[in-house]
């Protein structure tokens, strides 16, 4: 999995591509841990994401908590969206 980061003022956009599985999810965790302190809102662009496991869900939830809810997820594929729905992620996070 690859992650691309774009900064627009106080907003960061992370574009994920590939498989977000148990082995790969620490990359996302590292990316979140290293976000600049002025970032107060986060966009996850999942257009290139083909797969996520529960470890990926965990990272997204902790990102949501870190941004105090200011998290938007974009371009989620149908398959990944299924996992999100199954875990109840869609109840809190706004999808575009």
């Amino acid at each position, binding site marked *: 999995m690859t992650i691309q980061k774009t900064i627009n003022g106080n907003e960061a956009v992370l574009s994920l591509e590939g498989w977000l599985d148990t082995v790969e999810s620490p990359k996302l965790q590292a990316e979140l841990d290293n976000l600049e302190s002025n970032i107060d809102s986060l966009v996850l662009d999942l257009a290139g994401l083909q797969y996520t496991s529960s470890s990926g869900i965990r990272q997204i939830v902790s990102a949501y908590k870190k941004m105090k809810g200011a998290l938007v997820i974009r371009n989620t594929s149908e398959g990944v969206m*299924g996992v999100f729905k*199954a*875990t109840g992620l869609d109840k809190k996070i706004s999808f575009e």
Partner: protein
Amino acid sequence: MSIKGNYMEGTNSNGTVIKRKKRRVSILTRISVIFLLAAVVSGICSAVLIRRYLVQDEARKCELAARTAEISAELIIGSIDAAKRMKTDIVFRDYVHELFRDLCKAAGLKYIYIYRFRDDGIREFIMTAAGDDAEDEYVSKVRGFGKTSDTPIFDIEKEILEGKSEGGYEFVKNKYGDVLSYIIPINDKNGDIVALVGVDYSMAFINERVSDSVETWIIIIVLMFILAFVASRILIKASVLKPLLMLSERMGRFIENNEYKYENSERNSHFEDEVSDIEKSFDRMTQDISGYLKEIGNLNFEKAQNETQLSVAKRIQNGIVPEEFSLLSDSCETYGLMLPAKSVGGDFYDIFNIDDKRVCMVIGDISGKSVSAALFMVMVKMYVKENLQTGMSPAEALNNTNLDLCRSNPENMFATVFVCVLDMNTGELTYANAGHNKPLLFGNRNEYIEVKTGMPLGMFTDPVAENEKLRLKKGDGIFVYTDGVTESINGDSIQFGETRLNETVATKKDTASEGLRDVVRTVVDSVMTFAEGLEQFDDITCAALYYSKDADDGIVIKRDMKSFAIIRNTLLSVMGDNDNSRNAVLACEEIFANIVSYSGADSIHFSFEKSEDICYVSFSDNGVPFDPVNAAAPDKEFEDLDTGGMGIMLVRMYSDEMIYSRKDNRNNLMLKFVKA
């Protein structure tokens, strides 16, 4: 002359060392003092001796004059006629007096006098003459013819009168001065003494002459002494003291100089002498000492180097045998142990997977010991492993290694190696032997495998080994060892031997439950007990492989999330990459992650079956019991999702069926996926 403190060591009654200061006096000073003393003593002695000699010499001159006077006197007054004439004839008397006075003057005498002793012992002068005119006038009156003197008779006069002496001298001090008197008898024709003639030499005159001579002589002697002293001083300084000083400086430098540099001492000397002998000895000694020190230094350095090399080599040897036996399968158990002898030996063993289904065991023994053997061992081990891992059969691997070793083997070392490869799926054991001890079969049956011996590696370029095959049954094991095991001797020089080894291994019947480790350790312990009290002279190495084909068919997976790639790729390749297959992968990942994180299993198998539109995926692990089917899967709130716990829920959601069983201490889970 410098005086330095020099200490002499002594020991008092308490045993403590006391130091007494010794005065330093140069050899030259001491020699000078000796010379001075010698000069003074010899000056005094020679002065006395020379003086005596010179006085005698003067006395001889005096005698000469006296003889002349005697002859004259005899001629003149030797006859009675002449004596009578002297008495009467004054003219004749004057004539004779004149004659003797001239003689006095000519011979430098003070007096000449002729006299006789009367019967009453009184001297009666016949004639007296003096060299000095005024004195002559005086003495011719008071000591003239017929005059007498009561001067006592001298010893020499007595001797002459008694006929004991032909003349002699006497030192006389009287009113006429301090003189040497030489007295000679005057004989008549019959030989009777008629008168005596005496001649007087002035002692003052004699002393003056003698003193002059003595002074000259003393000056000459002293000069000679000074000359000799200066010459010997120069000689001693140049040929003894200076070289000695140089030598002493060089000794000092040699002692202080830690580099023990040899200094060439060639001095410009034209002669060989005692000092040059010392110098030569010193040179030889410094060279010897320097040599010894260098040698000692080298020895220490070499010793340290050797010890370092040995410890390095030992670490290499110990580090090169496997410590963990984490094979990708549990259908095969392996264990190995090496007990190196004191010095570095050349034993090694190796156990590794060639691939998922094949495990390989290698054991070897290098000829010789020490570092070179250890290095050769490393080469052999690497070559063999590399060859086997590139897919070569045991014989190919050995033959190929042999060629590589023969290409560069300056020490002409060789290695005996046995290689076997077990196919864990079929139980087929392929092995090849390059001159090593025959392996022992144990478990179901206990017997040696009669392998072809082959040739050790590194000797000849001809092929050394052939492949042979054997099918192991479940419960069969292969025990390999080095000659350190069978050739260990006890106090009676009896070898441990193959029979005893077989018997020892055979006591371990229930291999599976007691573990292979126990088999190997029992053998090593038996050998150590057998050879108790004797120093271990060779490495003791054993390794064993046990075929326990008790697992279900399936792929052996390491307990590591990275290994999930194998499962994922398998599923995707079987089911195709689509949302359904990804969901199946997701379910499997959650199961596998669970096993990896919580089971503690060290054996995980994965297998799948596929019919037209249904796929069964099975997991089997020997970890703690866990039933995902009946496990509680809490319905978590969103806020708790980052703590995990969704796995089981996802598995349930994405699998079409879950079947769990616990059998043979293993969790067996089957997931069913139906294609959309």
